[in-house]
């Protein structure tokens, strides 16, 4: 470790300690656990600044926060999965003894009228899960492909129907919108002409743009025919619509990220430093 690094670490440690002490003192009259709360707020500020330090360049503080995040989030999801799925859903259906052991109410067979009682049915995924863990064994690792095959097969079957319905049929049917809305003749159209958001003209324009936009967008993604003539023209309109979409999506994403940044800055300047009210 270089001398500069040691000095920097010592400096950060001193700043951390001072901040902890100052924060705890400021929370003294508000909370009983002001020392631990002061420590946690200082830690959160330190981690926020560590991640932001990546804007300068990759550094040990960023790496520290990044590696801590990996470990903590893996354990968080495991704990959550264990308590909510294994203890919350599986154990109550498996046995009365285990339910009492884990202090969760036992669930009687919900589907006892059918072929398999719950107890037997819910032992099957446990066996499949154990088979999945066989992946750790060099000799019997191949058997882990069985539970994997169950998941892949079931998900593929589910996705086939789901995507066909929601991403194809529903989308196509929503595209065929009326191109003439509340049409009562050309004279009426021009006499009542306005640019209100829910007016006849804007609604009709929107429907035309949706219909033509979807059609031209699809043409742009169709690569089995050369983009020439009418097909080429439609493809060009398609890319215009796509560009507007990419721009709008970009703007939307940027604003989302900016709002997160504002949140973090608010934490630093309000919750930690108390510089803003």
């Amino acid at each position, binding site marked *: 470790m270089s001398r500069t690094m040691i000095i920097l670490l010592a400096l950060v440690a001193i700043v951390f300690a001072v901040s902890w002490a100052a924060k705890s003192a400021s929370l003294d009259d508000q909370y009983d656990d002001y020392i631990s709360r002061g420590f946690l707020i200082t830690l959160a500020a330190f981690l926020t600044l560590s991640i932001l330090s990546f804007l300068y360049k990759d550094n040990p503080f960023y790496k520290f926060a990044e590696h801590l*995040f990996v470990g903590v989030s893996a354990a968080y999801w*495991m704990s959550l999965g264990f308590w909510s799925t294994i203890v919350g859903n599986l154990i109550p259906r498996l046995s009365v003894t285990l339910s009492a052991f884990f202090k969760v109410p036992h669930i009687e067979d919900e589907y006892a009228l059918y072929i398999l009682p719950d107890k037997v049915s819910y032992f099957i995924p446990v066996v499949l899960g154990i088979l*999945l863990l066989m992946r750790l064994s060099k000799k019997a690792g191949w058997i882990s492909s069985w*539970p994997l095959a169950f998941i892949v097969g079931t998900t593929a079957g589910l996705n086939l129907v789901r995507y066909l319905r929601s991403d194809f049929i529903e989308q196509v049917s929503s595209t065929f919108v009326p191109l003439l809305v509340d049409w009562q003749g050309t004279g009426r159209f021009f006499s009542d002409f306005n640019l209100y958001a829910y007016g006849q003209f804007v609604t009709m324009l929107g429907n035309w743009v949706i219909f033509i936009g979807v059609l031209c967008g699809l043409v742009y993604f169709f690569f089995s025919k050369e983009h020439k003539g009418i097909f080429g023209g439609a493809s060009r309109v398609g890319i215009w619509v796509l560009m507007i979409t990419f721009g709008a999506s970009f703007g939307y994403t*940027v604003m989302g990220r900016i709002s997160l940044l504002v949140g973090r800055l608010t*934490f630093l300047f309000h919750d930690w430093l108390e510089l803003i009210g």
Partner: protein
Amino acid sequence: MKRQIPLLLVLVFGIFMIFQYFVPHESSEWIYEFFLDWIYIIGIFALALGIWSLIRVSYDKIKYKKPNWQYAVITLAGLFAMILFGFDYGRHFFSAEGLSNYMFRAFFDYILIPIQATMFSLLAFFIASAAYRAFRARSLLATLLLVSALVVMLRFNPYFGPIGPYLEQTASWLLNVPNLAAKRAIIIGIGLGMVATALKVILGIERAYLGKD
């Protein structure tokens, strides 16, 4: 045997899940619910496998003093501390009280959330610098991209005075009409792609999930 049985399982369960959708009977729904539960339960075992893999990789890094091995210690420390708190130091191992443990919640609120939110907010800087380089009104397409992005970004800006409401309405129209049209075209493409991939998996044409051997 090692490959045929998984392929057969995929075929049987895949076709079954397609057919159950077209059978409007209580038992069909029951089996559907059961299978979904099974997937979640097996998923937890897969998560355990992932955790084990993380421990193994980090341990090897420390053992063989690989570059940046010190950070693997941080990963393992964070992992074990969170597991310890998640199970309430073993005091309430047999109840879900670990999830409401003070330190478990503190780790979530003061470590996990700040790091995650800051990482995502960091993207604002990179995305802005990328935009500065890419957003030049050099052609019609680039201009469309630039204008629509600007309209959406500036829609809530309070400094535009009387133009503000029009900007907001234009942004809403852009998001609800042309944006919807192009996204719908993309979604239709994705839908068809997903159906084709699912069919390839069920029929055993796509076998990448089985690995090489």
